[in-house]
């Protein structure tokens, strides 16, 4: 990490620094997680400029809400991802956003953007993307709807016309599958 001047700290140090309002914490968080957070935000709002604006909002929120983070309740990165997702979903559902995006074909943008932009790959997990996309599509689609498209699991059940229990099972199966690859 030192070779490209990127900062990386252990989660424990990060949390302490963040709570102590040390600006190095936010720099480290940015270096470590900004790309992953932008990926999540972008997939929800489907608009690169808005996504970057929301990424800024996300970091400001992370900085300002640091006190409310409780490590006993979950990992820091998951907490950050959920902040990014909530900000994105709020934006997605806001009136000005809906009006501005009426004419856009949302579904078709992802592949285009992925091809155009340089998608970063972690060297440790290189090649896993293919494996992940090889997950059973019905499991993956439910997880993606909830994780990347801003649906609640209840909305996803309605959209797919599936019982809520089935949706829960599919989310669990998809995550189990992910765990086989990552854990």
């Amino acid at each position, binding site marked *: 990490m030192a070779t490209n001047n990127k900062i990386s700290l252990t989660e424990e140090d990060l949390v302490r620094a963040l709570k102590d309002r040390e*600006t190095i914490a*936010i*720099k480290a968080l*940015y*270096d470590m997680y900004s*790309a*992953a*957070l*932008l*990926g*999540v935000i*972008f997939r929800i709002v489907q608009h690169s400029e808005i996504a*970057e*604006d929301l*990424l*800024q*909002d996300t*970091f*400001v*929120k992370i*900085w*300002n809400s640091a006190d409310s983070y409780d490590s*006993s*309740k*979950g*990992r820091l*990165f*998951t907490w950050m*991802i*959920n902040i990014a*997702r*909530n900000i994105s979903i*709020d*934006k997605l559902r*806001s*009136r*000005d956003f809906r009006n501005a995006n009426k004419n856009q074909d949302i579904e078709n943008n992802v592949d285009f953007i992925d091809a155009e*932009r*340089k*998608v*970063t790959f*972690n060297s440790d*997990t290189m090649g*896993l*993307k293919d494996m*992940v996309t090889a997950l059973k599509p019905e499991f993956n689609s439910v997880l993606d709807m*909830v*994780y*990347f498209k801003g649906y*609640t*699991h209840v909305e996803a059940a309605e959209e797919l016309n599936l019982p809520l229990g089935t949706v*829960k099972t599919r*989310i*669990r199966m998809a*995550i189990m599958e*992910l*765990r086989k*690859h*990552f*854990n």
Partner: protein
Amino acid sequence: MEESKAYIETGILELYVLGQLDAHEQREVEGMAAKYPEIKAEISAIEIAVEQYAVQHAIQPTKGLDQQIFEKIIVHSNSVSAEEEIFSAADHEAKIIPLQRDQSASTIKTLRYALVACIGLLVVSVVALYAAHDKLNVANQQILALNTDKEKFASTVSFMKEENKDLQEIATISSDPTWTSVKLAGTKISPQANMMVYWHRKGQHVIVDNTKMSLPQNDAAHQYQLWAIVDGKPVDLGVFDAKSVSGKLLIAMKEVGNAQAFAVTLEKRGGSISPTMEKMVVMGGVSI
């Protein structure tokens, strides 16, 4: 152990990590995680998997974005923390929520004005309606009054026409030689009484002139009866009333072709077959 395993299998932990639970359910999961280390471990495993899934979909931000973010944050961290909270909250809200709130607030404001305007219009309308209704009532009463007046005038006109016709006839009769005017003078019982009868010998018409009648007014039980004296015998020519009030000017009586004199007696209402001589009020002979 069994409990935690069953709990893990419900899939609630995945929803917890994905932020899909409400506050109550979240507290429940957190309680379980505090109680069972294996649940806590399971949550972490799910979190790592989902985090890695996000990392797989990472997109590198534009260069320089980090500086913008740091500037924002440093500006914030230079101010007092309480202020900072307000500032950031305002900043965040300014991005999303106020737009909607402002719009709905202005819509409500507009609707409120519209409501007030509607009520105002309604009040004005009711007042106008009431005034119109009032005027209509007055107009209706005027129409009724005018109608009554009109009827009065019409009856007056028709009465006057009738009267005029009779007056003209009187004028014609008095200038027409075929008509004979017979003046009846008062008798002993009513020396003041007198009246005029017109007689058309050829046509056998007999007419009593109401305008030239001066008889004491008869009561409801009695009427005057006109008699023609034909060859010394009285012939009934019909009954009439001596009215002071307006009535017909000319009263046509029964016909008689030959008469030497006319006389009027006061009889019971409807007339008698033969005259009551002592009740004769006027009489007069026909001058040839």
